[in-house]
């Protein structure tokens, strides 16, 4: 489904002077950013730093207050087929009577279109996505019966089934165990090799250095934007995490950033 605008050298996301917030609260300001095809970008910062806000603006779910922003050369939200969004888990009613298969199939809806039923291509895409996240055996399971990690995998499969060109993932691997995290990151790396772009927020700084090629450091403002190896730069960590930082001897910095909102996910490992 690669269209001309995803060729190497073109720009997927372009933001200049972006400002966004909720009510009286400004969550993001002065964000200027360019992301190209094939990039695997970590969005890093403490709670309340604007990670989710940035992803929501890019997905077209929150209108920016100021600044210019385009996704595939259009306003955010204008290319729903090409952009997949994975929200933090809390927004879904888990007791809802849908199976894993139903959820993954929802990823195809924007391609299927109104008043039409899923076809053979859609069924094949759902099979492929379930295979990629290792959930074939659980396809008929009701979503509420899954562990927290399995729920994350099911929603990632929904994004994969959509076959988008840009993935906007809010904490895709929070709450999954180490082995699953490795598997899912490998899937995302594969997608990037095929020219897809991935923006994923994360709390896991160790994983940033290992898996990502680039990291965006947020603390309401854009603190730093560069190679993932910046995770070893004390100045960047200080500027991003401020008071959440504990300095230990021998130049070791500890980041104390509890992500309490993800407790459910943490409690139910696969």
């Amino acid at each position: 489904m690669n269209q001309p605008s995803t060729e190497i050298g073109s720009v997927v996301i372009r933001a200049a002077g972006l400002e966004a917030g909720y009510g009286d609260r400004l969550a993001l300001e002065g964000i200027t950013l360019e992301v190209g095809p094939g990039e695997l970008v970590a969005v890093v910062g403490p709670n309340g730093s604007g990670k989710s806000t940035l992803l929501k603006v890019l997905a077209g779910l929150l209108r920016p207050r100021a600044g210019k922003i385009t996704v595939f050369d259009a306003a955010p939200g204008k290319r729903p087929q090409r952009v997949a969004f994975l929200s933090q888990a809390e927004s879904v009613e888990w007791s809802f009577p849908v199976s894993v298969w139903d959820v993954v199939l929802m990823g195809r809806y924007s391609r299927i279109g109104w008043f039409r039923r899923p076809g053979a291509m859609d069924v094949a895409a759902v099979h492929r996505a379930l295979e990629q996240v290792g959930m074939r055996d659980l396809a008929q399971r009701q979503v509420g019966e899954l562990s927290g990690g399995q729920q994350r995998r099911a929603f990632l499969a929904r994004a994969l089934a959509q076959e988008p060109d840009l993935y906007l993932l809010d904490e895709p691997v929070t709450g999954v165990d180490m082995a699953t995290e490795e598997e899912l990151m490998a899937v995302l790396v594969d997608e990037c090799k095929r020219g897809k772009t991935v923006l994923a927020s994360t709390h896991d700084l160790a994983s940033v250095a290992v898996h990502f090629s680039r990291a965006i450091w947020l603390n309401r403002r854009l603190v730093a934007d560069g190679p993932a190896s910046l995770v070893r730069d004390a100045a960047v960590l200080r500027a991003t995490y401020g008071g959440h930082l504990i300095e230990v001897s021998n130049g070791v910095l500890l980041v104390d950033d509890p992500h309490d909102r993800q407790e459910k996910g943490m409690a139910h490992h696969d």
Partner: protein
Amino acid sequence: MIDFFLSPLAYGFMQRALIASVLVGGITALVGVYVVLKGLAFMGDAISHAAFPGVVIAFMLKTSIYYGAVLAAVGTAIGIAWVGQHKQVRLDTAIGVLFAGTFAFGVLLMSTIKGYVGDLFSFLFGNVLAVSNTDLVVLGVLGGAIVLTLVAVYKELLFATFDPLGAQAAGLPVAALEYGLLTLIALTIAISIQVVGIILVVAMLVTPAATAQQLTVRFNRLLILAAALSVAESVVGLYISYYGNWASGATIVLVQTAGFGLVMLFGQRAGILRRRAG
């Protein structure tokens, strides 16, 4: 035994009552699945009570009560949805205010009519035995439109109900779907008033759907099961009310309530007795 079912059908009013019960039972259950899943029971109650002044005005103007019921119910549903999208007050507070206010207005209007007690009773509690041929046509047309709409936007409505944020990101007009669903709920309530009345209609929306919810975890089966249960319960209720000479709407609702109680006790998913045994 066969005579037990056939002999009441010798009467035209009973034939019409049977058709009306089947239609209303099926439609309320289908729409009711969304009401239960979205937690809109209180909203449904408010819409039906708000339909009351519409019904009374239509009655005073000597026109079909459906006109008044449809206008008042749909207007209230859209008004509540608007408040929900522009949160100035909490939604349940807004519903509470509208609910009592509009109903009081209906009571006030009703009290200006001389000798109103008999009609008041049938508006509040329904009278399926008084369904006319015209009523059946309205029921068939509006009911058919409601079911066709639910079938046409089946997958979009499922997505938007389960995961509104995800549906919006996927490009679905979530707000429009929300207004549309509330309009369907309001229409369903309006066409059900003749059968079960304003006070009891919420039970037909909620009870069969809640019963079916205890029996399946698949959305498509939930819709079919809720509709089948509700139709069967409505027919059983109608016959019991005929032979017992009891209020028909109340009897249908009580049969549905009994069905819910049985499933709570013996059902596979939530059965209290089964859980203890297991």
